[in-house]
């Protein structure tokens, strides 16, 4: 009896054959859809509660500002835009179920979201499967848009931003020894740190120490003490403004007087509010600079301030852009079907958005130039512009 089982099992094993799958990771099996009524319903998934809620709220405000603007101008093809926004508490499985609801219950024509790549990675396969275009405002992990041809983004990807800062540190600031302080809980931070290290060491620089913290921490003195002992010329702290302000403060207290460097997660007025003077002389890469005199940026900042009574942060700008790019694609699409909108999104060329002139490339990532901003006395000052 036993021998027979064994024989059957080995026979089964022998018949195993390898078939490599081709094309996108997830195939479109859904029918997509089209706009039927007299309004365009778009779904938004974001973290309205939980640890990442502050990022979700900013993005939401940015999106709503764009929607108001679009509707005030008469909507798209004469139809008003309506946003249904669902909370995912910052959890991937909640994001997935919210996406399913938006697509199958609310019959949305497109999806906006999420901030965190971890949530977008759970949402994208569902949007792709159903053939619904999805535009993520600020998920920077390259894998997000690799899920399929219905997934787009309007932000930088980690490799680009990481290498921008590395080049800036090596070429412009002439630094040779840099320390890393990354947020181990945050995939964005890890991505940026990894690609920074890759480019920086390739250029000939040296990473003297690689320390980490977790989102939500308030005490960074031990990490900073270790970093201080290695005498770096700068510290690369890719992370969100919620922690960076405190890090800058504590670095100054410990007598570390080298510049800090970071990415677009720094862009918020809270950064300088919390970090204060300690941030002077630090640099970060961003999409635009608030003192950019271009009309688009100034108008966005003024409108946002009028609507929400605060200065927009980078996430708000990105939320606004995601909506604007989607609206632009809908306007250009010959008809309001998901297939046509997807095609129009992929064809986006040199669209003048808030965060820069955006072109969607073949990988469905946004190509736009980055700016380096220097912080001086609590003000963000334009330093240089780096093209992709």
């Amino acid at each position, binding site marked *: 009896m036993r021998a027979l089982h064994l024989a059957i099992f080995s026979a089964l094993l022998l018949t195993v054959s390898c078939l490599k799958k081709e094309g996108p990771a997830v195939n479109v099996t859904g029918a997509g859809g089209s706009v039927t009524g007299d309004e365009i319903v778009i779904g938004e998934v974001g973290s309205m509660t939980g640890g990442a*809620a502050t990022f979700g709220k900013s993005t939401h405000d940015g999106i709503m500002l764009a929607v108001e603007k679009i509707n005030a101008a008469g909507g798209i093809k004469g139809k008003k835009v309506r946003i249904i926004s669902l909370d995912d508490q910052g959890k991937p499985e909640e994001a997935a179920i919210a996406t399913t609801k938006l697509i199958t219950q609310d019959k949305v024509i497109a999806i906006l979201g999420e901030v965190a790549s971890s949530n977008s990675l759970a949402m994208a396969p569902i949007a792709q499967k159903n053939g619904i275009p999805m535009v993520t405002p600020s998920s920077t992990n390259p894998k997000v848009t690799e899920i399929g041809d219905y997934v787009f983004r309007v932000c930088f990807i980690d490799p680009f931003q990481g290498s921008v800062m590395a080049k800036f540190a090596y070429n412009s600031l002439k630094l040779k020894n840099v320390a890393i302080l990354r947020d181990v809980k945050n995939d964005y931070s890890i991505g940026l740190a990894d690609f920074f290290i890759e480019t920086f060491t390739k250029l000939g620089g040296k990473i003297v120490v690689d320390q980490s913290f977790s989102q939500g921490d308030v005490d960074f003195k031990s*990490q900073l*003490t270790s970093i201080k002992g290695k005498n770096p010329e700068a510290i690369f702290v890719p992370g969100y403004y919620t922690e960076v302000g405190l890090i800058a403060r504590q670095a100054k207290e410990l007598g570390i007087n080298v510049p800090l460097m970071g990415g677009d997660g720094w862009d918020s007025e809270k950064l300088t509010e919390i970090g204060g003077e300690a941030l002077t002389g630090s640099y970060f890469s961003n999409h635009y600079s608030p003192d950019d005199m271009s009309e688009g940026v100034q108008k966005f900042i003024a409108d946002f301030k009028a609507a929400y009574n605060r200065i927009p942060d980078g996430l708000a700008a990105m939320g606004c852009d995601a909506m604007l790019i989607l609206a632009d694609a809908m306007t250009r699409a010959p008809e309001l079907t998901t297939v046509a909108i997807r095609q129009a999104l992929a064809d986006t060329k040199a669209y003048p958005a808030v965060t820069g002139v955006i072109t969607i490339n073949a990988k469905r990532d946004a190509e736009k130039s980055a700016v380096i901003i220097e912080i001086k006395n609590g003000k963000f000052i334009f330093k240089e512009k780096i093209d992709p």
Partner: protein
Amino acid sequence: MTEFIQHLVNGLGLGSMYALIALGYTMVFGILQLINFAHSDVYMLGAFFGYYVSKFFNLSLHPGYGSLSAALICSMVGCAIVGFFIERFAYRPLRKSPRINVLITAVGVSLFLEFGGQLLFGADPKYFAPLLEAGEPIFIGGVQLNRIQLIVLGVSLALMLALQFIIFKTKIGRAMRAVSYSHTNAALMGIPVDFVISFTFMLGSALAGAAGILVALTYPKIDPLMGMMFGLKAFVAAVVGGIGNVTGAVIGALIMGVAESMVIGYLASTYRDALAFAILIIILLFRPAGILGKNVKEKV
């Protein structure tokens, strides 16, 4: 060597923050044998009370000991009131229920405060402008200290002594100890048990309020979930020191702070959050009552 001492100083600074919160945990547990999970969220409320008081009266424009004490008092009173209501409505009705029910309720109260706080205050972090200027950092042989660190350490030691005094030298303290032995016996001796328990809670919550202000002084970023991890670690510190023991809480907290600091300095910073629990598990396995706690034999 300088680096080692700096790590030690950092650790003691962090540990004294944990101590402020651990004191409240340990006192309530000592008297009532109840893990007040919501304590770390009352601490969060304390920070927010301070924030709004300071904003309303523009206290941060005149930093100094006066403003600090004003905010401290407001926040301690506010938290004491919150503590009173939590005890009155969530814990008192359950006094005769199994302990697991009370634990579950405590978890419920904690989640309620956290997510209610997110609705009420908003989820974004707030900048709590310092009520006391840190002044120039003091350097002693390359090791850096600052005024606030010393104040926090001093306050937590002072509070520890004050608690010891209240519990062991005053009339209400004697009543508290009597209640901790037996509710029934205490009641028979003419002790108003309900009042004593309410008092214990208000005292513990006032401690949390003080902790909220003092921690915000060092880390001026406050948000509704700030109590989650920080409070959990403080709680672990209380257990490590021997929960129910006031001195133990401070010792446990300082050990925790220094251990975290050393792990980050000399091992791997990514394992910091795991460390607190690893220490806890080791302590509980080899000395279940904590460093200073007494082992209690279970009877039928």
